[in-house]
């Protein structure tokens, strides 16, 4: 067995998580090759130390905030637009389009007012589409504050 072969087989042996002693081929090479003997010993010490890696308990605060994730948050509801408004805005938009087109070509006060009202409607519509993005950011901030 060559040294490279020894290293590869030793790694595979560790991957198999076997508790038994080294297979014959490995121990035969190790007994005649001090370098591989050292390599093997330190690999096994490392392997065993990693099996004993400490498990850390998450804090009670973290556990508490994880359990709260599923509760609807009052502050989220307050800033959220209702689905009714969204539906209303979706209905309004097709009706609004001809007026918007007109408003851009006419300049009377009445038309400007109409255009403003319709632009407001459009804003509500656009914001309702963007709402999930805003909520995503907000939701994250709220939960981090809870930690």
């Amino acid at each position, binding site marked *: 067995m060559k040294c490279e072969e020894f290293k590869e087989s030793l790694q595979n042996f560790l991957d198999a998580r076997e508790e038994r002693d080294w297979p014959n081929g490995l121990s035969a090479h190790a007994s005649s090759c001090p370098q591989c003997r050292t390599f093997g010993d330190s690999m096994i010490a490392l392997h065993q130390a990693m099996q004993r890696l400490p498990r*850390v308990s998450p804090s009670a605060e973290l556990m508490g905030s*994880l359990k709260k994730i599923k509760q609807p948050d009052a502050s989220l509801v307050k800033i959220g637009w209702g689905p009714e408004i969204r539906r209303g805005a979706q209905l309004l938009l097709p009706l609004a389009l001809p007026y918007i087109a007109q408003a851009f070509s006419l300049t009377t006060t009445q038309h400007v007012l109409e255009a403003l009202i319709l632009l407001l409607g459009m804003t509500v519509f656009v914001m309702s589409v963007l709402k999930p993005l805003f909520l995503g950011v907000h939701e994250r901030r709220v939960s981090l504050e809870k930690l």
Partner: protein
Amino acid sequence: MDFDSIVEHFAERIFNQALRVLGNREDAEETTTDVFMRIHRGLGDFRGESQLSTWIWRITANVSLTRKSRKRVQMVSLDAGEFRDDPRDDELNSNPEERFLAREGGEELAGLIAELPDQEASAIALFYLQEMKYDEIAAILQIPPGTVATLLHRGRERLRKRIRGERKRP
């Protein structure tokens, strides 16, 4: 499995996985929160294309690695000179390498794992901490099982060199 049971069953494991990959408690806590928010959002749409646990671990791996690459790990590491022979654990016939591995209940070794290249740290933590098999790790990291072996082998080799390298410092 409902959300409460998922928290009950996975929270501690996910926190520890994130802690080993990221190397500090603060990042691990934020990562864990982020993972559970994603689980909560996605749970309704989860159709079982993969096992629930694979899906959860995949989210954990992705969120941890994203955070890690964003922060480029400023973590507790072994400074030169920090690796010294501590008289407290000076036992006859125990070599410095073994003492390093045992120091502070393995916390120093854990710190070195977080310094490994991202995928190696993930694979090592899934293998040793979560006691997963090749094919489970492969499904989570979305790589072939052969690559899992490569990551584990390289990770171990790198850790061994780091530990021996640290030992040689004055």
